[in-house]
């Protein structure tokens, strides 16, 4: 089928839709792709050229010193030094060269260049050079500058560096230490509360539900000052550190609680009444009903919420900054990355590798459990508002 025919088959408007979605996807993907590619490049290459040229190879400027005058051989009237501009195993393709640092691309590789003083220099693409003069050479070996096209090369060195010497490895463990308990503890507490709010009759129920709904949107900022004071007082009173993992687990559990109760209540109250009634008739206690019937049936809602809570606790910076210390054994990934941004300003090989390590876990969780995440989002916003 010719291009025109297939275009007719698809239809122009449809093609425009395809193309625009493709463009949007590329725009959305490029930022992340940028740091992913950069994190695998060598420091020198990162600053020498944009990451988008990483696959075509980069033009790097390097300096080399030609052979000492003592190695010159006399050929007729001329003295000639020859050899390779690449020393110590460094390779590549020379595109251009020059004798001044300001103009490293003054002469094209492979063509003899007249560099004054009766000297002629030819540097070939493979790095071999012929340097000749109509009189004996004096002084030291001449310094030349090469514009070398290096083949695309990738390294995992950046990751090794940040994981070991920049403390990102330790922070990774710290983040897990924060996120996993802070995800599991609130689920259980919220599920019991949600069950009570859905299937038990008691005075004040409507009021508590209204309270929970209201608390969903209360900004974290409202809680920080009194809690910080409270934590410090508790710390002073009992002589324990005021910034501890236990403190942040409870804080995260509490901050996630309103949404957790709300989501789980929406789900649990929608479970078929007959199942719960018939279990009650059979003499099951509420505790048994909850553990044996409600929990297994609510799996989708529990999964949705745990994904939210995990992403939120893993990605959180503010709560960790207030309730956790900044020592090596407590600094979480987001905090470590923030600190690196301050101290490693332009060192993109460190920053990009660290950033990628911080986002890799949530991205895996995201792609593996996207279905539950979407379901939770829809339950959280479309139904109730």
């Amino acid at each position: 089928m010719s291009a025109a025919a297939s275009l007719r088959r698809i239809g122009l408007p449809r093609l425009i839709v395809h193309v625009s979605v493709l463009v949007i996807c590329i725009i959305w993907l490029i930022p992340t792709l940028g740091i992913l590619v950069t994190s695998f490049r060598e420091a020198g290459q990162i600053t020498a050229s944009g990451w988008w040229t990483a696959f075509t190879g980069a033009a790097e400027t390097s300096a080399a010193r030609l052979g000492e005058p003592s190695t010159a051989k006399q050929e007729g009237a001329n003295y000639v030094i020859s050899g390779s501009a690449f020393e110590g195993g460094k390779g590549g393709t020379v595109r251009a060269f020059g004798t001044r640092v300001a103009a490293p691309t003054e002469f094209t590789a492979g063509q003899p260049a007249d560099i004054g003083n009766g000297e002629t220099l030819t540097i070939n693409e493979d790095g071999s050079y012929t340097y000749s003069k109509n009189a004996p050479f004096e002084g030291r070996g001449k310094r030349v500058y090469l514009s070398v096209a290096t083949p695309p090369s990738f390294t995992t060195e950046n990751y090794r560096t940040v994981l070991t010497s920049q403390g990102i490895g330790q922070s990774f463990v710290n983040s897990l230490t924060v996120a996993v308990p802070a995800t599991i503890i609130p689920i259980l507490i919220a599920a019991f509360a949600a069950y009570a709010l859905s299937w038990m009759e008691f005075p004040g129920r409507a009021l508590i539900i209204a309270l929970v709904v209201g608390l969903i949107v209360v900004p974290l900022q409202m809680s920080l000052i009194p809690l910080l004071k409270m934590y410090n007082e508790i710390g002073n009173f009992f002589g324990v550190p005021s910034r501890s993992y236990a403190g942040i687990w409870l804080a995260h559990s509490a901050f996630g609680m309103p949404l957790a109760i709300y989501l789980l209540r929406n789900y649990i109250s929608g479970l078929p009444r007959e199942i719960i009634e018939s279990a009650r008739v059979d003499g099951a206690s509420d505790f048994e009903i909850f553990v044996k019937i409600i929990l297994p049936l609510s799996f989708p809602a529990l999964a949705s919420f745990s994904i939210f809570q995990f992403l939120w606790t893993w990605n959180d910076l503010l709560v960790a900054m207030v309730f956790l210390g900044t020592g090596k054994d407590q600094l979480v990934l987001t905090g470590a990355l923030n600190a690196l941004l301050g101290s490693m300003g332009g060192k993109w090989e460190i920053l990009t590798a660290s950033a990628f390590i911080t986002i890799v876990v949530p991205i895996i969780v995201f792609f593996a459990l996207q279905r539950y995440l979407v379901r939770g989002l829809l339950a959280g916003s479309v139904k109730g508002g």
Partner: protein
Amino acid sequence: MISQIVSAVGVVIAGVFVCALYYWLSDKILQAVFPVPVDNVRAASVNLNRRAMVRPWLFLGPALILLVVYLVYPVVATFILSFYDRSGGNFVGLANYRWALQDAQFRQSIFNNILWLAVVPAACTFFGLVIAVLTDRIWWGNIAKSLIFMPMAISFVGASVIWKFIYEYRGGTETQIGLLNAIVQAIGGSPQVWISLPFWNNFFLMAILIWIQTGFAMVILSAALRGIPEETIEAAVIDGASGWQIFWKIMVPQIWGTIAVVWTTITILVLKVFDIVLTMTNGQWNTMVLANLMFDWMFRGGGDSGRSAVIALVIMAAVTPIMIWNIRQANKEMGGH
């Protein structure tokens, strides 16, 4: 490090165990305190009623304690602290509020927050809606959606590093390795230090949040669009409506409620934006927003809880209308059950 992993795993197991133990044990105690004798029907029914009265509070207890200690009490305490001095010890009346009104940085933050509120929710909703409509019409729409949705999983700090690299500026004759400056250079412009350009730098920070949140808007709006009955759209097609008309006159009005929900959710998020400003500029070059100013005052010069509390209350006041609307909505829904 190993010991930390072990202790974290231990805490998870212990935490779950303690929670489960609490609910199990409290239920057992309840049954022991209010026994149900088989031979005495009257006593049994009295005790069964008592159990039913107490049990909800046993189930709710831990959740309520957390909510009260970490959310309800702090809201009240912050309100009270706003009338006290920096240490929270001496009553100063409205002095902190008066300070806020004439503080240049506070005004700057209010202005910037309004700017964020005007741009980010609108942009996210608009892009989300357009992408939702477009992706619903192609076979690989779900793949496209999950790619656009993906930034939601990335932390604000991570996203800031990602975008800082895009805005990277290198002085002199050095090669521009930031994508934005490289593009600007390629089309003949001169490279800029984007994040320190007063006023416009706000928009470069907003781009990060829009990049993150558009996926959220898209997912929700896409579900709402699928909920529109097909007959409605078919009828419009038969009546000769154009694609444009169908979008604006049929689809958008049908999902108006969902658009409002998306808009308000992102509005709340924008009011709390903190990480992005902290990591990108830390409020320099006129990019300060309320959440960052509040955090700043919490620790600046040993901390000023009074001023910090006032700033927190401004954020709270801004979300209060949404909160009331949500509660009303929830009550209405429960009444309908």
